[in-house]
């Protein structure tokens, strides 16, 4: 194919679309909608990826959590409920024995605990009891003030470090450090604030407070309390080794025989990837269905309009053939027209989706803060995908009309009025 032929085909296509703006627009509507689905789906999934990454970074991809509960949610809740609690003694025993891990910390949690400041009550905040080492993990990174110290651990000091959201709901002016709050009736001295962790998957992490484990147990008691153990492997490469050792030690501590099933779970960030995989599947399932449907409608619309275009230009085809246009050139001319039609359609959906997505990501999180992870911009990668898909759709839609055009008999076409 000669360059002049290709360029000519593009010029003719643009001319023809320009001459039939409304018709072209209506014909490409299905493609516009299909491409919009692709873009919105891709954007939502990109948001999800970001949340996932944030979550993993916050927890640390080298962290394991030994717990009575399983994070994956796939297990029978009643079976988990029936598991024996992991006691403080078991946790301490584990921490003493473990060798491969960089550090291991016992963690106790109490959800929805009453916190009083002056005469105001706050009920939705969780309390976490742990050791000073927790302040060294990403989840305990300090924004202001300090984390509690090993000696405060040891002497059950009544000091508390707030997570970001909890801090600002109790102290809207951000002036909490140095103040005293009452947790479950006990006085605690506020010494620090942790950075915002904020991921949509684990939004509760910003809504808790941290106290020394010993103080926690003093306040809430340790009877029937199940702890979890945070185990930091040091690096993702160490995970397998640390996991194996962890399971081995815990089996021993829990007195399990080799043939017995585990009565505890070892959770890690991979679990989140699994749970988002399900979500991803839903998005694709629904999205792909709608997308395919609109592309089918789109292809029918474009094919139809291309047949009209071929019929209208029968005479022109005859003239071009008479002066030496080869079949392939006519074929290409109509395929290009159809592809450009779809490409323009995808440009429109891109502009439309950009505006929509910008608006949604800017204004909706004001009402629903949990979706603030949504980016107001379309990932650039989607621009390429959308263009590519639209060109393919255009080629498919234009193929049959173009073949018909290229096979027209020149003498008959010239006679056509």
């Amino acid at each position, binding site marked *: 194919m000669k360059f*002049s*032929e290709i360029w000519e085909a593009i010029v003719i296509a643009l001319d023809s679309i320009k001459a039939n703006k409304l018709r072209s627009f209506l014909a490409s509507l299905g493609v516009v909608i299909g491409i919009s689905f692709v873009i919105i789906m891709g954007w939502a999934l990109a948001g999800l990826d970001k949340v996932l990454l944030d979550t993993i970074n916050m927890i640390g991809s080298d962290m394991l959590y030994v717990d009575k509960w399983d994070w994956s949610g796939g297990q029978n809740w009643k079976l988990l409920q029936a598991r024996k609690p992991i006691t403080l003694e078991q946790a301490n025993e584990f921490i003493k024995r473990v060798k491969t891990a960089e550090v291991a910390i016992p963690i106790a949690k109490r959800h929805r605990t009453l916190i009083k400041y002056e005469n105001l009550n706050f009920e939705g905040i969780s309390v976490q009891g742990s050791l000073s080492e927790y302040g060294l993990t990403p989840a305990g990174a300090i924004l202001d003030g300090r984390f509690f110290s090993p000696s405060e651990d040891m002497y059950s000091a009544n000091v508390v470090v707030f997570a970001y959201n909890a801090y600002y709901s109790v102290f809207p002016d951000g002036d909490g450090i140095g103040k005293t709050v009452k947790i479950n009736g006990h006085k605690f001295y506020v010494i620090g604030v942790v950075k915002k962790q904020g991921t949509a998957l684990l939004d509760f992490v910003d809504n808790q407070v941290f106290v020394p484990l010993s103080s926690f147990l003093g306040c809430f008691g340790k009877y029937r309390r199940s702890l979890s153990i945070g185990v930091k492997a040091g690096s993702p490469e160490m995970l397998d080794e640390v996991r194996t050792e962890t399971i081995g030690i815990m089996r021993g501590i829990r007195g399990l025989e080799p043939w017995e099933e585990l009565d505890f779970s070892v959770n890690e960030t991979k679990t989140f990837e699994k749970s988002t995989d399900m979500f991803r599947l839903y998005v694709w399932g629904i999205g792909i269905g709608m997308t395919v449907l609109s592309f089918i409608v789109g292809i029918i619309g474009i094919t139809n309009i291309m047949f009209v275009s071929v019929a209208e230009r029968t005479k022109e085809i*005859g003239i*071009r*053939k008479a002066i*030496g*246009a080869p079949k*392939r050139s006519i074929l290409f001319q109509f395929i290009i027209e159809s592809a450009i039609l779809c490409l323009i359609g995808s440009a429109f959906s891109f502009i439309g989706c950009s505006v929509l997505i910008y608006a949604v990501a800017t204004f909706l999180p004001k009402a629903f803060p949990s979706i603030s992870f949504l980016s107001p911009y379309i990932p650039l990668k989607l621009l390429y995908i959308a263009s590519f898909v639209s060109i393919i759709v255009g080629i498919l839609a234009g193929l049959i009309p173009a073949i018909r055009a290229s096979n027209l008999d020149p*003498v008959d076409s*010239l006679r056509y009025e």
Partner: protein
Amino acid sequence: MAATNQNDFLIQFENISKVYQMGLELVHALRDITLSIRKNEYVSIMGPSGSGKSTLMNIIGCLDTPSTGKYFFKQYDVSDMSDNELADIRNKEIGFVFQTFNLLPRATALKNVELPLVYSGVNSSKRKEIAQQLLEGVGLGDRITHKPNELSGGQRQRVAVARALANNPSIILADEPTGNLDSKTGKEIMILFNKLWEKGNTIILVTHEEEIAHYSHRIIRLRDGLVESDEKNGNPIVPKISELEEIE
């Protein structure tokens, strides 16, 4: 006339027939035609309506293929050629001029003349240059940006002639080129053809009008798909020099 050698033949028809099927009926548009045309001949084809003139022209121009018989174009057997090769011959060797002009309505005169060059792969700036020269050659140097509907019939036909010349073809095929023109503008076109013939082009035209046919040097008459007569015109009309210059 001097003895000619075989290779002078541009067009050779050997027992060419064209049959159309109309329902159950067969229409014999051409019956067993054998004829040859040499380089730089100036031929007109006459005959009543339906006698097969256009069919003959279309076959000569490789727009159509015969039902039976052999057609040699420059010694090449056209019946062996692929669609692409035929398109290439139409593009480079043949210039068509039609009764109804057949210009692209939305394109300017310049663009119309450029079109054959698009398909022969000439680059854009060279195309414009050639087309401009050709339009000047037919006296339309000041009309290059006009679209067909902004031109008179005679001017449109001159654009069509310029287009036919774009790739410097061996033959100009004109099917009733003056059919839609008044006698004065028709004459202008005939003056153009005469000039082309003088420059060495081969010209074949179909016409109803005896006067137009008398510009040519050979007149072939068809009737019912057969050659009724094929005679030399010993006394062709030669436009006067002053008329020739009128167009420049």
